């Protein structure tokens, strides 16, 4: 039986992307929590280029970058496909996954900035949501994947969960349901899916950790 291990961090949306994919595919795995302020020698050995989580280990062979991991998982276990079979539909799905990859860092940037810089990031976040509302969620589908979630839904998890928590923390209001009705429906639908609902970091715990991290950040900025 091939051994699957996942190096992750409980606060990271990229880590959850992989957890959900493994659960949707019914792949058993061992989870190893990394302390990102004190990375383990194993992590640095398995991901020497980026030194980041998540890292998937399959039979002692490392795979890095969450989107690369998702595609690997989808290919080794073809049941419950996470991407469309039609090449053009797949290309469209990959386009939105790339969009999610390119834009998701804005959400954590909201947390790491303040003042004018934060306002600029907030504006970019708003524009990202506008694009999703206008271009990605057309056709009245329940999920990006149609009737079931697929890799695109998973890729936008930062918008579904992390954005709201960071907005609460920072006292911002970027996402408003009445301004983004389609996106709002999608978020409700996505967070109701059992595998997602049962595997999301607790909001209160997140706020506590974010507060602590922010204090450290500000202290290092002023020193």
């Amino acid at each position: 039986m091939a051994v699957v291990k996942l190096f992750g961090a409980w606060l990271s949306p990229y880590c959850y992307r992989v957890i959900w994919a493994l659960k949707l595919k019914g792949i058993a795995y061992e989870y190893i929590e990394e302390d990102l302020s004190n990375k383990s020698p194993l992590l640095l050995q398995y991901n020497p280029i980026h030194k980041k989580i998540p890292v998937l280990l399959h039979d002692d062979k490392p795979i890095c970058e969450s989107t690369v991991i998702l595609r690997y998982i989808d290919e080794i276990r073809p049941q419950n496909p996470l991407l469309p079979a039609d090449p053009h539909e797949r290309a469209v799905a990959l386009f939105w996954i790339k969009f999610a990859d390119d834009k998701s860092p804005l959400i954590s940037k909201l947390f790491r900035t303040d003042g004018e810089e934060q306002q600029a990031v907030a504006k970019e976040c708003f524009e990202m949501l506008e694009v999703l509302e206008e271009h990605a969620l057309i056709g009245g589908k329940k999920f990006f994947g149609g009737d079931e979630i697929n890799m695109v839904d998973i890729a936008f998890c930062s918008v579904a969960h992390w954005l709201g928590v960071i907005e609460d923390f920072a006292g911002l209001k970027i996402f408003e349901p009445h301004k983004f009705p389609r996106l709002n429906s999608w978020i409700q639908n996505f967070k109701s899916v059992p595998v997602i609902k049962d595997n999301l970091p607790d909001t209160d715990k997140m706020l506590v950790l974010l507060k602590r991290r922010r204090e450290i950040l500000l202290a290092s900025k002023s020193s």
Partner: protein
Amino acid sequence: MAEEVVLLDFWPSPFGMRSRIALAEKGIKYEHKEEDLRNKSALLLQMNPVHKKIPVLIHNGKPVCESLIQVQYIDEVWHDKAPLLPSDPYQKATARFWADYVDKKIYEVGGRVWKTKGEKQATAKKELIETLKLLEKELGDKPYFGGESLGYVDVAFIPFYSWFYALEKCGNFSIEAECPKLIAWAKRCMQKESVAKSLPDQQKVYDFILEMKKHFGIE
């Protein structure tokens, strides 16, 4: 139904070159449309409304955006000739990882080499060489990143070779001196017709960069 393939492109774009190479490797006949990026066509804005960028591949009227996605699409649809991605899932993951690395690093760092001067440029040059050395290490003794034949990472990376002369002139350094194996790989790729026909002349690229520098007021 006859296949209709159109590529909306801009001659110095390394991203456009990727798709040109992939189409040439597969022997696909297509219509090449050169875009004026200061005056984008209605077709481009219609086919890529989100980013309004080239390249855009249009296959039987349906657009595919983002160059690496285009290369994967071309590889899937025209799978019976010159496969670019390996069939083994782990090797595929490795190829995707390195193409992603090229995407994250080369364009941005390379851009800083010609757009900045002084200390900022020195930092950019150092970063670029570090990045290229990592790629050189990954190549190892293989003739191509794809092994014995041109593969996905080769297609993703080789277009930037057409910019090396311009970067060397702007930064006053030699990439070959630092990464001889990488340059040997690049020249090997250039011997392939699909690559040679898809990359512009390096002097032409340098002239283009000089014009861009003037336009943006960079000394």
